[in-house]
């Protein structure tokens, strides 16, 4: 029983670490594409300016509710599914 709880704890810790890292990564990708979008729309005002920062900040509002940000939550689900599948294959087939 203790071993099983240890497994749950370990999987949870690893999942949370990856969840945090991947959500930072996804946000960073989105910000980068927004900056490129700004540069494409305003070739005369390209580059890191106050104005572009404001545009990026405004566009990132509500990003955490988008599909892509929510898909990161799969990181919390897929390892558990994989473990259940392994248990099934090893012990019941």
């Amino acid at each position: 029983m203790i071993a099983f709880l240890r497994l749950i704890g370990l999987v949870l810790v690893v999942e949370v670490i990856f969840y945090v890292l991947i959500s930072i990564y996804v946000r960073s990708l989105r910000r980068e594409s927004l900056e490129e979008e700004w540069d494409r729309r305003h070739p005369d005002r390209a580059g890191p300016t106050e104005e572009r920062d404001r545009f990026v900040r405004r566009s990132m509002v509500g990003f955490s509710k988008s599909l892509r940000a929510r898909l990161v939550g799969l990181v919390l689900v897929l390892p558990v599914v994989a473990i259940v599948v392994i248990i099934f294959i090893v012990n019941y087939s």
Partner: protein
Amino acid sequence: MRWFLTVLGVIFGVAVFLFLDYSLPSKQTVRITDAYNRLTEIGANAIFFASPDTGTVQNAQGQRDVRFINTARPNGKPYVYRNEDTGWIWPPYFKYDSSNLQAEATDLESSAADPQWVSITSYGWRVSWASIYPNAISIKPVSGPDERPFNWGAQIILAVLGAILFLIWRMWNQFRERTIDPAVRSADQAWDRLDARADAARDHVLREAGEARGWLRRRWDRLRGR
């Protein structure tokens, strides 16, 4: 220094290979000749057996009752598996049906005269001088000694590991491009500004000193009546 890093890299690569070779599942077509359990001395080779908290029974002398499966390979040479639960952490097979597996193995025992070939999935190595046995995971009857089912498990695990490595590599690149490089650039700029200010200060001091010297010389000249 370069050769040192090369040696370190080679050692690391070999370690990763051995680690994967030990813990990934492998399949082998064999014929089961016996399935039994016996008291086994567990000593320095303990890490190649199940960890103590997986329902193993160990007596005061450090002996354990371990199930074994004796087999013969198509080339006639023997191969011996152990059959132990793996527990919940490592290696992550989550196997707790060794009793059932032993029953299956007993059921599929056969003689050389009337062979019943099976494909046994297992992980681990057989090292006879150190009494190390691979752990059998599953047994499946096959039609003959030449039938070798494809090892899907190992391929899928390797593909997933590769995908995770690729993701980590992409994440690291993004982090370097958007966080480390700009920080280094701004630190460089700050250093340049500091440098320029130091230059300006030195110029200022030199100019002041020069002016002071000129003033002194003029006073001196005047004193000498020129």
